[in-house]
């Protein structure tokens, strides 16, 4: 690490002479270059936190943040959101039976119906979410338990998925497609929404199942393995343990929505950051007619209850929400902006007072020698 404390130059006798050693042999000045960089004289901007810069900054931040906050708050308040928990924890809740009599082996599905009323009509596109609570999609072992190569349609990975998928990698000799804990725990409740006409008739609300996933996920990240058709492509693979049907039969109604590119599947595979999360389930597109997308009134939510969450004290919700430019209902952001803006403004005032009252700089301007 340290320089050798002994070298040839030292023994030659003419130490520290003006003749430079080993160089071109000419007596050349060792005077360092007179460049601004080497002499540390680079032109520089030297900002100082003076009252003239800091105090206006506080007021400006305040003046920017408060209007933004108000705007956000108002926008957020205009968004309509409806949320209903259908887990079936209580005895009197409609899904209590389904929730408590769940068994993984049952071949018949259990259904339950939840009635609810929308006080206000929902305009424009309405988005339908399912929400899960206490579900740790962000657990390290869960997050990594997937094989993106397999999901990208890689043939070798389909047959021999990554070890990350353990213990949902193989059943016997057959590999699981899609492998891993995330895929295995795919949310498979089906929700159907009916509008109860004033007449009492049930009017099914059209739920679009396309366009709920990220474009890149649908078009880049997830791809079906090559093959004549999906069953051939997935030949030799097993369905995940918890699934009732293989991956290529996820959406019987739309052949393009099957296999790894099934959007419900893709949405599920995009793991949530927090244990309480919601995922987009369906979109209720705006009617062409002038009526609201979801007029106020009574609705029936038909649930095919396949997904047990009670065992780990989880909760399931169905959420309906409209959307603005800033997304869904989010009162926090507006409030936070208003608060921070006000604090900045207030701080500015306080600092201004302090500055005027206790300013010592004019007294101590002289540099003590």
């Amino acid at each position, binding site marked *: 690490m340290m320089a050798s404390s002994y070298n040839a130059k030292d023994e030659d006798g003419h130490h520290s002479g003006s003749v430079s050693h080993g160089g071109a042999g000419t007596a050349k000045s060792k005077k360092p270059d007179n460049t601004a960089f080497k002499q540390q004289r680079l032109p520089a901007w030297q900002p100082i936190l003076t009252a003239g810069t800091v105090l206006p900054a506080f007021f400006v931040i305040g003046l920017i943040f408060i209007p933004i906050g108000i705007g956000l708050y108002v926008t957020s308040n205009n968004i309509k959101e409806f949320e209903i928990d259908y887990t079936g924890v209580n005895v009197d809740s409609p899904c209590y039976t389904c929730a408590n009599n769940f068994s993984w082996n049952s071949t018949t599905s259990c259904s339950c119906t939840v009635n609810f009323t929308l006080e206000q009509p929902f305009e424009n596109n309405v988005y339908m979410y399912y929400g899960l609570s206490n579900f740790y999609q*962000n657990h*390290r072992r869960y997050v990594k338990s997937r094989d993106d190569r397999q999901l990208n349609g890689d043939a070798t990975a389909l047959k021999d998925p990554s070890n990350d998928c353990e213990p949902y990698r193989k059943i016997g000799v057959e590999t699981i497609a899609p492998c891993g804990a995330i895929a295995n725990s795919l949310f498979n409740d089906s929700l159907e929404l009916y509008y109860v006409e004033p007449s009492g008739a049930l009017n099914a609300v059209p739920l679009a199942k396309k366009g709920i996933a990220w474009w890149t996920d649908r078009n880049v990240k997830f791809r079906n393995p090559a093959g004549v058709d999906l069953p051939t492509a997935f030949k030799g693979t097993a369905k995940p343990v918890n699934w009732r049907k293989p991956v290529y039969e996820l959406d019987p109604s739309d052949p393009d929505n099957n296999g790894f590119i099934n959007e419900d599947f893709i949405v599920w595979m995009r793991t949530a950051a927090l244990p309480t999360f919601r995922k987009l389930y369906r979109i209720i597109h705006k009617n062409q007619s002038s009526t609201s997308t979801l007029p106020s009134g009574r609705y029936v939510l038909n649930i095919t209850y396949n997904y047990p969450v009670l065992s780990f004290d989880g909760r399931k919700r169905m959420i309906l929400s409209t959307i603005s430019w800033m997304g869904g209902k989010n009162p926090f952001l507006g409030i936070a902006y208003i608060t921070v803006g006000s604090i900045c403004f207030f701080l500015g005032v306080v600092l201004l007072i302090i500055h005027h009252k206790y300013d010592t700089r004019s007294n101590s301007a002289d540099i003590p020698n």
Partner: protein
Amino acid sequence: MLSRPSLLLCEKKKEERKVKANDREYNEKFQYASNCIMTSKYNMLTFLPVNLFEQFQEVANTYFLFLLILQLIPQISSLSWFTTIVPLALVLSITAVKDATDDYFRHRSDNQVNNHQSQVLIRGSLQKERWMNVRVGDIIKLENNQSVVADLLLLSSSEPHGLCYIETAELDGETNVKVRQSVSVPAELGDPNNLATFNGEVVCEPPNNKLDRFCGTLYWRDKKYPLTNQNMLLRGCVLRNTEACYGLVIFAGPDTKLMQNSGRTKFKRTSIDRLMNTLVLWIFGFLVCMGVILAVGNAVWEKEVGSLFQSYLPWDPPVDNFLFSAFLSFWSYVIILNTVVPISLYVSVEVIRLGHSYFINWDRQMFCSQCNTAAEARTTTLNEELGQVEYVFSDKTGTLTQNIMSFNKCSINGQAYGKGTSREKNTLDFTPFNPLANPDFCFYDEKLLESVKVGDWHSHEYFRLLSLCHTVMSEEKSEGELVYKAQSPDEGALVKAARNFGFVFRSRTPGTITTTELGRTVTYSLLAILDFNNIRKRMSVIVRNPAGRIRLYCKGADTVLLERLHPCNQELMTITSDHLNEYAADGLRTLALAYRDVSEEEWEVWSESHRSADKAVDCREDRLAAAYDKIEQDMMLLGATAIEDKLQEGVSETIALLSLANIKVWVLTGDKQETAVNIGYSCKMLTDDMMEVFTISGRTVQSVRQELGSASFPGNGFREGQEGDGVAGDDQLQGSPCPLPPTYLMDNISGEFGLIINGHSLAHALEADMEVEFVSTACACKAVICCRVTPLQKAQVVELIKKHKKAVTLAIGDGANDVSMIKSAHIGVGISGQEGIQAVLASDYSFAQFRFLQRLLLVHGRWSYLRMCRFLCYFFYKNFAFTMVHFWFGFFCGFSAQTVYDQFFITLYNIVYTSLPVLAMGIFDQDVPDHRSLECPKLYEPGQLNLLFNKKEFFICIAQGIYTSVVLFFMPYAVLSNATQSTGVPLADYQTFAATTATALVIVVSVQIALDTGFWTVINHVFVWGSLGLYFTIMLALHSQTLFRIFPKQFHFVGCAQSTLLQPVVWLTIALATAICIVPVLAFRFLKLDLKPQLSDTVRTHLRKPAESRLGARGGSRSGYAFAHQEGFGELITSGKNMRLSSLGLASFASRHSSSWIETLRRKNTPPKEPCSSFL
């Protein structure tokens, strides 16, 4: 003290070394080292394993290797392997490249040395041989001005009496020529033919590093000859004034004393280093705590939730209960949280220091154009310590002074001449008047020349004295080309002055002195030299002029000389004393000159008494002194000389500036007390404004204790009157807590006293029972001068202060006698370009002039400290802000050690996204411009008090980091958990969350560095904006479809960047988080600046009127005298031993007291009480 171990070694039969001359076969049996020198560490093959082995001896590297191994366990691995291996590999390879370059240069210099040519006597003939092929037992021929190949036993020399002259500058830094003599008997081995058959055997001590000791025996022809250091020529010396000599190689290559002395220097660490290491340990403790908390959390979670969640997420196979899972999760968290102390910390610190070192090397204002030497930072590890120095220990000769004496003023017969040195006045031109004049000589008063020209008797006698009364040797290579070899520079200056004024000393023999007096050659017969010594403080010569008159010429310290004058001189004496005082007040070294006519009878009587005293067996010295004393009486005063011991340029300004910066300067010198005090005054260390200057020169424990006691007494008494200074003292105490209450009291009174302590008193003062007292007294004094100190004592003084004051010490020196102090001080500075290179080799910084010290400390040191502190504060902050987010996330992900960020972000955060701006700040930041910190030395104080980075500052940074991490996690958490894109897709998916947090983090720390950076150069702009740009570019690239298609598994964040960065909510979140993180900091800093501005802030805001220079007042009346040479040379001259036979012409007298003078010289050269005055 030194002699004992080597004597013991000598007595040990087993460890002795046997060397037989001209017998390689015999010598090979012992397998002595050859003369090949290898300072390099690696070769091609061994580089990789050895270097890696060395690198992994660093705790940090091993730690990261350990983490890497942990990550290979799939159950633990919370990060991919590359997040650790990339930085580690980067660090290892950077270090390896650096080591390899260093080693390459070592190889090159080794080769250069090893391939020098030397003449070896092989089978009776001289052959050219490379240095590396020289073997122990070979006989080597050396010629004038060649450097010595290996440690040689001098066998014969071309000079009479087997003498040869060497310069030992490389070894000990002393440039004066030293004498060596060959072993007495083989001196007859004059020519190579005899030497070829020489087969003596040397038995001596094994290799050691003691430069001034050698003991051994030469066995030849059944006789034993004792060998001492006087017979040795050591490697590194240079042969001077000797045509040729032959030597027997005793030690070669690595066994030579030079190489034994160039051992690896102690690895120095800065206090910031030590603090950093402590903090890193604390952080590790903190890391373990966090790990434990999260592991406990994991246990609880796995028990309460995880075990129930198993239908969706079963435990990994080896995990069968929550406790084992918690154990694994502990290690997982250790891995992901280890970034609180990233490996890049150490690398960045190294890079910053390297940058600072380059700035030192590049500084034109520390370049000395006379000697073409730039400042050099020889170690790159100490820069910031330069900003914390409290004590400077300085050597005198060659460091404060140029070691050049110039005849500056004189007083002849009551008439003062000389106007001092000034560039406005014209120097006298001697050439028309005196062809032998030396053009280098400068004098500024034409009156003196006039008086010589008109034939003023006193002026003539004055210069005659100067041309006769000295021990200078002359060498006249061709007519008129005179070279004087003076033992002391003072004498040289005087003789040179006489020469220019027409009294040219031409040559001398043991009995005569030949001069040219105003063009006329005169030969005086030299009757006696009454040599100089420390007690006599004078020297005289007794000469008989061609007319036959005997006259004694005497020069000496005024104190001694003036009391020996004839009473009739009273009036002249008063005038001359006034002049002397005047000169002394100017810091000049003075000598008084006098003569006395001696009658023939008186001479007869005296020379008889002198001869008997000379021959006396016991008390020879005393009797000689008494004899001298007898004749040096009733002298007639001629005048006085004033010699300027030229201070280096800007020394007094520098010392004044340093003391204004609260740095205490101690002068440690081997010089005499008078000289040292003189210099103390002339460089304004000591001033007449001082309350008192204590002198401690006692020779016994009691007297030293008493003197110390009396010195500290008035100090204590004075304390009450110094209330104003008490505040400063208190401040200082906080910075360097002193364990000793007396010292605390003493600190309060600093500034008004000076202390001068002698070497022999220092020996007592440094003993354990008195050192506390000494330290407290000495630290109470503003200036401390230790004179007559040995190199060892220099080091002891430094160690003492290190031990008792916990202050940063800096030692500056130029000679080998300073090496020990340079090595023991926190920072060693070597003055390069003057004397030997030994001090420079041992130093950490070197430059050519003392005055550069102010720039090194007040500018470079201060900046380095500031930059390093700012760097460390920010670095710890940014890593806590980065890492602690994982901790908070742990509570929401089942304590599963899931990272918040993308793996690539974790890998690149420290080495790409945030490294360059902070590096730029650490390298380029300036709070005030350089001239400001020189104008306002008080700016140096924060470093001494360690204000900018200490434990408190560290905790503030950590707290800020943790606060930031809280904001960075919980703001996205609060906003995103319910937010959706404008397409309705929720934003709370893991990847969006990761991207948002990461972006917010990068922006927040960038804003923070922008706030911290006080000096925005182009580079800072490029780095700050570039890092931000780079972050987004890399993020978009990593999340791109192309990379995903190639490596779907690694780049599964595909599309995340576009999707996230297009969301207004994400940007609103980032802006919110940034505001919440930065606004409090901004408010806090503004308040601090507004209410309690630091001095640097004030200076920064008011960059206006330049401060006027503040130099101390002129001194009053003091007296000092010049005589720096050693005694013994008079004897050397009269014995004629150092004269060349050729120039002498007569060989007859040589036999008289053959080797007795050498004995005397040897005895005097290494006086038992002061082993320092001359090493060899």
